[in-house]
């Protein structure tokens, strides 16, 4: 069953596709934006921008370290740099460059990592960014956004170009359900409640938001009223929404397509433990690399399903 199907959601664009469309559209009114690509522009979807604006697009080849520092240099000279690659290669190959050429000087570089998570499927673990959020969150001053659908991805793309400073935007490969209205309000650091509920709260981001809604539907059938929050920004985290949910619903479940360490679960737990300690449970990839296979099969095998979220809710309820 497709993600979101249980909750009657329509299948929409992949977040990478929405980003590519938005970037090209915004290119006209943001003449200061430049794109630096590591020869994967047709995968990360920066290609349409590059075709439209060749004078401010640079494919520097398969050399991510250089790519990120070049983006830093462009930003040091006043440009808004968008630098995109697969999440795994961007964060893991060029981490020191992100640290020293972007985060430490606080430059206006927008890091875009596509093909995040295991839902990229057949290409396998070498291509799967599953530690990227943790790595990104570790760097001071770097905002981290994990949008759940096309509408919020487009809004996030505009929001990151409008803000000053470094941002990491995490994108996925598969099509995901439509969660938000096209004209949804989006603010970096401000989560969106996508389902009301009083008995527990599922905090999710990325494609896990659709699954969380499916899980909430299943639990509703059993008489449990579960809130779902789209926590699209992991850093800076929306502490108010977490505290409110903890107080009002008494139990939190965090669902993400990421390793257990360093991602949304870790960030939320840090907030909860020092504010309103309540029982928590987690749905994530634990501490392992995945494998090749079809996306749906992988999500099932590695425990990223509505059923797994239902179980996690029941652990704390």
């Amino acid at each position: 069953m497709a993600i979101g199907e249980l909750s009657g959601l329509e299948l929409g664009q992949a977040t990478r596709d929405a980003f590519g469309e938005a970037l090209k559209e915004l290119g006209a009114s943001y003449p200061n934006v430049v794109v630096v690509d590591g020869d994967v522009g047709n995968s990360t979807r920066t290609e349409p921008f590059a075709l439209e604006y060749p004078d401010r697009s640079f494919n520097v080849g398969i050399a991510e370290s250089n790519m990120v520092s070049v983006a830093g240099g462009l930003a040091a000279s006043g440009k808004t740099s968008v630098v995109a690659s697969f999440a795994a290669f961007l964060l893991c190959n060029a981490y020191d460059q992100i640290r020293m050429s972007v985060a430490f000087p606080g430059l206006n570089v927008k890091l875009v990592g596509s093909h995040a998570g295991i839902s990229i499927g057949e290409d396998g673990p070498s291509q799967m960014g599953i530690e990227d959020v943790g790595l990104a969150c570790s760097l001071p001053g770097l905002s981290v956004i994990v949008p759940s659908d096309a509408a919020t991805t487009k809004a996030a793309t505009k929001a990151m170009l409008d803000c000053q400073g470094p941002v990491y935007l995490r994108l996925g490969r598969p099509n995901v359900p439509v969660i938000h209205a096209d004209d949804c309000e989006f603010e970096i650091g401000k989560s969106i409640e996508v389902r009301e509920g009083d008995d527990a709260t599922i905090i999710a981001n990325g494609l896990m938001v659709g699954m969380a809604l499916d899980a909430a539907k299943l639990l509703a059938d059993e008489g449990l009223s579960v809130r779902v929050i789209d926590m699209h920004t992991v850093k800076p985290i929306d502490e108010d929404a977490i505290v409110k949910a903890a107080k009002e619903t008494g139990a939190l479940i965090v669902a993400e397509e990421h390793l257990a360490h360093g991602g949304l679960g870790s960030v939320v737990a840090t907030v909860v433990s020092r504010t309103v300690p309540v029982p928590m449970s987690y749905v994530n990839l634990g501490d392992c690399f995945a494998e090749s296979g079809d996306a749906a099969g992988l999500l099932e095998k590695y425990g990223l399903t509505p059923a797994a979220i239902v179980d996690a809710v029941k652990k704390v309820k």
Partner: protein
Amino acid sequence: MSVEALSIDQLEEKAKVIRRHIIRMTTEAGSGHPSSSLSATEVVTALWFGGFLKVDAQRPDWPERDRFVLSKGHAVPVLYAAMAEAGFFPVEDLMTLRKLGSPLEGHPNMKRLPGIEASTGSLGQGLSIGIGQALAARIDGTDSKVFVMTGDGEMGEGQVWEAIATAHKYQLGNLTAIIDQNGYQQTGATKDVLDLTPFADRIGGFGWHVQTINGNDMSETVEALKVAAEVTDRPTAIVSKTQKGFGILPLMEEAGDMNFHGKPLSPEMAEKALELLA
């Protein structure tokens, strides 16, 4: 605007002043990399005071300025000394090097000190940053030039070679790389640790214009920078063969350490050094 170009004699005098600053500030700090700074002193002095680097101490963020990126960030005392002499901050501030609260950190921090063009210290990134700055100048249609100084040990970083290839791809005629080939790195001679010489052949093989000079000779240095300025159709490199600790070599000989990496001179040694550089 840029400081008025000094003559060779005046540049040699200025280099002495800068060397004295380097000795004083690192000895006062009790740490730092004076020998790595001393090898690069002629090039930095010629760039900043020979009429090659167009900067304005009153407007450090002037968009059309030239950029000097010190990729071998540990040699930052030579850059701070040049900046102070150029009026970016009072000369007295040099004595706050590496001290708590001072923007004159152990490695360059562009966020804290106006006039620093890149935060470096993790070797290998400066040339790529310079490429970004050179591309930005091209987009903006300015005649800004970018000068990047790397170390010879630093050439072991693969990213430098990625950058060399990229600068060639974009035919960055506004980019000059200077390799301060002082022959040593942290644990020994560069030829013993990881030998990537001859730099001229290797960089030239990527399609760059290349010159090799004695980078501790002011006349040769100035001449090379003049030639580099004329090269506008492709990136240009100056392989600057230098001696680590140039200016205080007799003292390093006496100490039995021709590398003298990452340590300040003792107050006694500094006193002798200042006499040598009087």
